[in-house]
């Protein structure tokens, strides 16, 4: 069908078909490249520790464990239960250190302070230290992401 003086010509239509196809093919090649270059590094869902290493902690004592590649903090509460936190400052990801005399966590990067429960009390950190769930099952101590659900 011939349209006189059309703005969108047959030529433009064919060109856009070709361009569209080229775009689709390019996308199908870019996608795997992107996936390769941005691979997901996920934090572990749970970490299994040997309970014996931590069973003799006194109430108020703080020990470290490995949460993936980040430091984890295990603290025995006054009633004997454990709380676990990720020992990474919520400001800009520096590792925090425990100051036992002052019973607080200190982040050296920008002078951030957290109390012994992990709540941010001073300095730039916007949020408390991230909590993790702890469960003692027989000889193992499991630290899990909160709400990640238990193993059955």
């Amino acid at each position, binding site marked *: 069908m011939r349209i006189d003086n059309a703005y969108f010509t047959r030529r433009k239509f*064919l060109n856009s*078909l*070709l361009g569209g*196809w*080229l775009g*689709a*093919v390019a996308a*199908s090649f870019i996608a795997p490249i992107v996936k390769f270059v941005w691979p997901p590094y996920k934090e572990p869902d749970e970490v299994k520790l040997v309970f014996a290493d931590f069973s003799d902690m006194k109430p108020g004592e703080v020990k470290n464990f490995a949460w993936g590649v980040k430091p984890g903090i295990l603290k025995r509460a006054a009633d004997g239960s454990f709380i676990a936190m990720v020992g990474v400052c919520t400001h800009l990801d520096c590792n925090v250190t425990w100051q036992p005399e002052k019973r607080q966590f200190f982040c050296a990067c920008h002078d951030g302070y957290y109390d012994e429960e992990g709540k941010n009390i001073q300095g730039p950190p916007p949020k408390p230290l991230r909590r993790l769930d702890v469960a003692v099952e027989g000889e193992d101590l499991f630290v899990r992401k909160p709400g990640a659900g238990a193993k059955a």
Partner: protein
Amino acid sequence: MRTPRILFWLVTVSLLLGPLAAAAQQAGTPPEAKDKAQVEAAAAPAAPAQEAKPSPAPPAAKKPAAKAEVKRTEPIVPAYTGIKEKTAVIVFFVWLWFAIGVLIYFLRQWIKESDRIYWAKYYEPEESPRKDNPMAPTLGD
């Protein structure tokens, strides 16, 4: 001297087939069965190694290696981790050739058109019968 055309094809074909033959030879030979050093069960890479598509049955210890300290003594031969991955590769292969076919179809149309324009001297109105055309187009329109 007109070099016989067959020589060109002999050379090109052998240059392109040579590596294929080498690869087929490599894929066909079983990897060296060496004594396995103690391979500690590695936690991480759950996926076993993948296996080459065309080589049927044979060889390949498909084990991933131990971490760090112990040197790996078994070769890693590519293999698919599951039917899903194999299907994905086949689908990609079909899509690849289909896409190439469509693109070449379009490109041939485009080539024919640009050739036609060239031979009709569309862009050089002085040399064409349309030399008195006041609306001569320029390349890039």
